[in-house]
């Protein structure tokens, strides 16, 4: 067993080693020998600050309790890093080009350098991360107590309780962070020493966990299968108890967003990144690291469950298993691993938070207090920042300690890992919109983050105190003022799902919804439009808009004064010299180009954040409204050019469409033209036949005077017949054209169909007698109201009945007319027992000039005009009815007229 003295001193020695690592790295870096320190390997290892003590110890505990759930915590980041080309690469590029210092700075800078957004994000980060730091402190104290549990009565340090241990850890971390994290306000907010120490710690914790894993799997058992077999033997279920469901998905989403949105992850992945290409390595190396970290988690958990006495804390299996086997050295190594994961999280989280607090809360307050600038000497603002950062770090760690102290023995800290993941996930919609959605604006981002955070506090953060506070427990159970719809874990009656899923769903849904709708409903400011272009189009525009020369109103001296206060005289001087900006007496009347101002603003922003840098320069009038309008104008010109080309594209598309339509119309015209030609040639042909016979016969009559009376009168009769035929033809054509072009005012009125049919039948009876044909009328109805023109309808009936009579060559000719009502229609069938109409004519019997050729010549019937059926067809169509040829009851043809009944009383 290890004595508390020994354990605590080891921890202190380890922290001293970290100091050395950091110090040496910083020293090498300042000599320009950073080399290995700025390598993809160190970068990747430092990203693994993601694995805190919550994952080092807690993953085994989670695995013991909930099976594979812990894998989701690593799987989300794995997916994000494998897809580095899409989100992370763009994020890193944007942040480098804009000198972004934190996630608050990123969102504020994108959304018009808004200070309020920066403050909001900083506050949310404080609320989410402070308990997380407390959790790390708790892990440190618990692990010290576990690893040194039994003996050590004689030790002097054994008297230390939890609280003093945590306080000691907090002070140690504060010292380290202040010493290495705030040495200077760096150009790019990079801390090589700290990163080196974090990378070192990352290696230590990985090796520690793997060592314990190998020891458990191969030292104490006989391989993986044996571990599982033993667990089964001991009566544990090694399989997933429930199918993977919404909680698994929610965890994937949370962990994927945490790897980007956690302030410490944003800091280490984006801000501390010195070369975008390192992502290429981190893209596979970080997932591999995560996989190695978790490969032994399940075996350790199961082995612990199977061998340790019931009731032992599975969160501490990593320590207790080697101890139980008497491997004190391994236990100490594991303890150092856990200590590493806790301290690295504390260090980076407090640096990231302190940057946010000092840049977005302290500095704006100091600037608004008026003439601070005049009092402060060289680098005055930088000094102010450093001081505020040191104080922030101390305050953050103090808050973490207080949180730990106040929650004490309660288990309120246990679920804080996921709670803080869900808290920072509220930045995700705004962050994605910042990178990909040009129209997203400040009001949208602000309301989204605000609503999301409020819902998160209500549905997740608050209920986490339910076990310690009866008031909150009651609130969770009954809702505020007994309003059940507002119960934190069953919002709007959404009950029966996992509280985590419930909270993640509502907070992200309302967050994204607010972001989208408010952005769509409100306008972007001028600054927001500029920034949205720079962020969204980082790979497209290469900041073209900022390169133009715009005149501001500030003199160079005034601007230099500002630069000196932040960057110091030397850097300001070199910046001005490189850009060839004159100062002093030479500079009277010289205006500073906006290009230079923009560059200076970025330089300042990389130290004090975009919002503050903007405020600072605006104060001296270096970036006043007018110049901004000019920026917009120029940006607008580019935009216009793009829009113009879009318009052109659309126009040409329209033109193509129009051309196509024209082509179609042309084709239609051609078709109509052809039909007209056909019609004309048919008509002329029809007219020509009688004309020819009239002409030739009249010629004979003129030339041959000695024709006998008989022949002469026959010829005259033919002329008469032919001219009558001509007249009928012309009448028909006129009739048809009138029908087709609707020149006549067609009026359908209610009529009695039977009356009309009777009238037509009477007319035709005479004709039938003349042809000696039997006609029969079979009426199954006597009063039918239909809509139509009675005369026209009569014309159709007569036409068809007359046709049936005239073209019937049967031995015992007969025509039958049936009329009935069927399915709400008035149906008239006119059938005969003639030869019928052969199939070849069925399709075009209603066409113009279509005549059925008599099969044997010498039929007594004169050929028809070929217009009657066509006209009938048109008329019936005008009455909204149908005229068709159907299979008749007799062997001849049968025409069917179908007209729909009307409700009104007949006239």
């Amino acid at each position, binding site marked *: 067993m290890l004595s508390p003295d020994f354990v605590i001193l080891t921890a202190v020695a380890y922290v001293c080693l970290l100091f050395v690592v950091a110090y040496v790295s910083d020293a090498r870096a300042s000599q320009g020998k950073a080399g290995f320190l700025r390598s993809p390997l160190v970068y990747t290892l430092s990203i693994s600050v993601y694995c805190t003590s919550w994952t080092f110890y807690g993953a085994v505990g989670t695995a013991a309790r909930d099976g594979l759930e812990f894998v989701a915590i690593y799987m989300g980041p794995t*997916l994000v890093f494998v897809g580095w080309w899409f989100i992370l690469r763009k994020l890193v590029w944007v942040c480098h080009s804009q000198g972004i210092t934190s996630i608050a700075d990123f969102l504020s800078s994108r959304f018009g350098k808004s200070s309020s957004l920066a403050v909001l994000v900083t506050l949310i980060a404080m609320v989410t991360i402070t308990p997380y730091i407390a959790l790390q402190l708790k892990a440190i104290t618990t692990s010290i107590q576990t690893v040194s549990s039994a003996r050590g009565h004689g030790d002097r340090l054994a008297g230390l309780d939890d609280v003093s241990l945590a306080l000691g850890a907090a002070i140690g971390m504060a010292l380290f962070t202040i010493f290495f994290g705030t040495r200077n306000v760096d150009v790019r907010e990079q801390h090589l020493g700290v990163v080196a120490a974090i990378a070192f710690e990352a290696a230590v914790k990985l090796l520690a966990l793997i060592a314990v894993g190998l020891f458990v799997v191969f030292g104490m058992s006989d391989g993986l299968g044996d571990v599982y077999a033993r667990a089964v033997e001991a009566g544990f279920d*090694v399989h997933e108890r429930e199918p993977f469901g919404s909680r698994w998905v929610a965890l994937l989403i949370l962990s994927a967003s945490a790897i980007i949105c956690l302030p410490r992850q944003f800091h280490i992945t984006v801000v501390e990144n010195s070369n975008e290409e390192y992502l290429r390595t981190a893209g596979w190396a970080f997932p591999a690291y995560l996989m190695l970290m978790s490969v032994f988690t399940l075996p350790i958990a199961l082995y612990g469950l199977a061998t340790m006495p019931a009731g032992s804390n599975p969160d501490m299996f990593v320590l207790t298993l080697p101890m139980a086997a008497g491997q004190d050295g391994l236990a100490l190594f594991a303890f150092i691993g856990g200590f590493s994961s806790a301290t690295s999280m504390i260090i980076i989280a407090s640096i990231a938070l302190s940057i946010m607090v000092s840049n977005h809360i302290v500095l704006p307050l100091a600037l608004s207090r008026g003439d601070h600038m005049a009092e402060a000497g060289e680098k005055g603002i930088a000094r102010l920042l450093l001081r505020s950062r040191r104080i922030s770090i101390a305050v953050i760690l103090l808050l973490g300690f207080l949180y730990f102290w106040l929650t004490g023995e309660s288990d309120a800290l246990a679920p804080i890992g996921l709670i803080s993941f869900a808290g920072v996930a509220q930045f995700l919609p705004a962050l994605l919109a910042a990178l990909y959605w040009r129209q997203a604006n400040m009001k949208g981002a602000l309301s989204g983050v605000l609503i999301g955070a409020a819902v998160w506090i209500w549905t997740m953060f608050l209920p986490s105190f339910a076990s310690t506070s009866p008031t909150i427990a009651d609130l969770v159970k009954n809702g505020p003022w007994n309003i059940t719809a507002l119960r934190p874990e069953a919002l709007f009656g959404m009950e029966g799902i996992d509280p985590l899923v419930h909270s993640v769903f509502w907070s992200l849904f309302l967050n994204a919804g607010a972001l989208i709708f408010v952005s769509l409903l409100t306008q972007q400011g001028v600054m927001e439009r500029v920034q949205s272009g720079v962020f969204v189009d980082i790979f497209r525009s290469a900041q073209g808009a900022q390169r133009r020369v715009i005149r501001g109103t500030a003199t160079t001296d005034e601007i230099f004064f500002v630069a000196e206060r932040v960057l110091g005289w030397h850097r300001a001087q070199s910046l001005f010299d490189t850009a060839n900006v004159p100062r002093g007496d030479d500079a009277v009347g010289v205006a500073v180009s906006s290009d230079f101002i923009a560059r200076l603003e970025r330089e300042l922003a990389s130290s004090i954040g975009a919002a503050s840098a903007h405020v600072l320069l605006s104060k001296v009038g270096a970036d006043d409204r007018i110049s901004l309008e000019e920026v917009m104008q120029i940006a607008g010109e580019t935009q216009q050019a793009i829009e113009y080309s879009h318009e052109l594209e659309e126009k040409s598309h329209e033109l193509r469409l129009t051309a196509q339509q024209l082509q179609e119309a042309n084709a239609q015209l051609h078709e109509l033209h052809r039909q007209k030609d056909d019609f004309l040639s048919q008509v002329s042909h029809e007219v020509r036949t009688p004309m020819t016979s009239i002409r030739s016969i009249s010629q004979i009559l003129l030339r041959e005077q000695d024709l006998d009376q008989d022949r002469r009168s026959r010829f005259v009769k033919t002329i008469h017949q032919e001219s009558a035929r001509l007249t009928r033809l012309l009448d028909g054509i006129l009739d048809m054209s009138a029908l087709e072009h609707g020149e006549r005012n067609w009026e359908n009125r209610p009529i009695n169909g039977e009356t009309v049919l009777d009238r037509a039948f009477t007319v035709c009876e005479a004709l039938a007698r003349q042809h000696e044909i039997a006609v029969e009328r079979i009426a199954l109805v006597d009063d039918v109201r239909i809509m139509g023109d009675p005369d026209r309808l009569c014309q159709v009936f007569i036409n068809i009945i007359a046709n049936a009579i005239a073209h019937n060559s049967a031995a015992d000719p007969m025509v039958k007319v049936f009329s009935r009502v069927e399915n709400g229609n008035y149906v008239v069938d006119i059938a005969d027992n003639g030869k019928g109409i052969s199939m070849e004519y069925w399709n075009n019997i209603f066409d113009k000039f279509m005549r059925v050729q008599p099969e044997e010549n010498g039929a007594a019937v004169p050929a028809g005009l070929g217009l009657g059926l066509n006209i009938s067809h048109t008329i019936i169509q005008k009455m909204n009815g149908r005229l068709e040829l159907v299979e008749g009851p007799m062997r001849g043809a049968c025409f069917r007229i179908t007209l729909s009944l009307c409700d009104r009383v007949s006239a």
Partner: protein
Amino acid sequence: MPGRVPARTDMRRRWQDAGFVIPVFAALLLMPPFLNLFAIRRLLFGVPLEVVYLFSIWAALVLCAVTLSRGLPHQIDPAAYTEHSGPDDS
């Protein structure tokens, strides 16, 4: 050699598409409907099948990521992505 440029652009696009599709597809493989196909209370080499499945996908993802890291286009400057590349002022 005008023929080579489109071929290279084409390869670059393929790599970029792969860089997008692989994590998305992997996410689908790691989501419930698929994942539950393997949570069938069966052992493979003495290890639950769902564990083997998850870690195999994970390992495959790491391998894919290694390949992607080699294949995805290198870049020096965002301006290189546009047709006109100007001097970088930062």
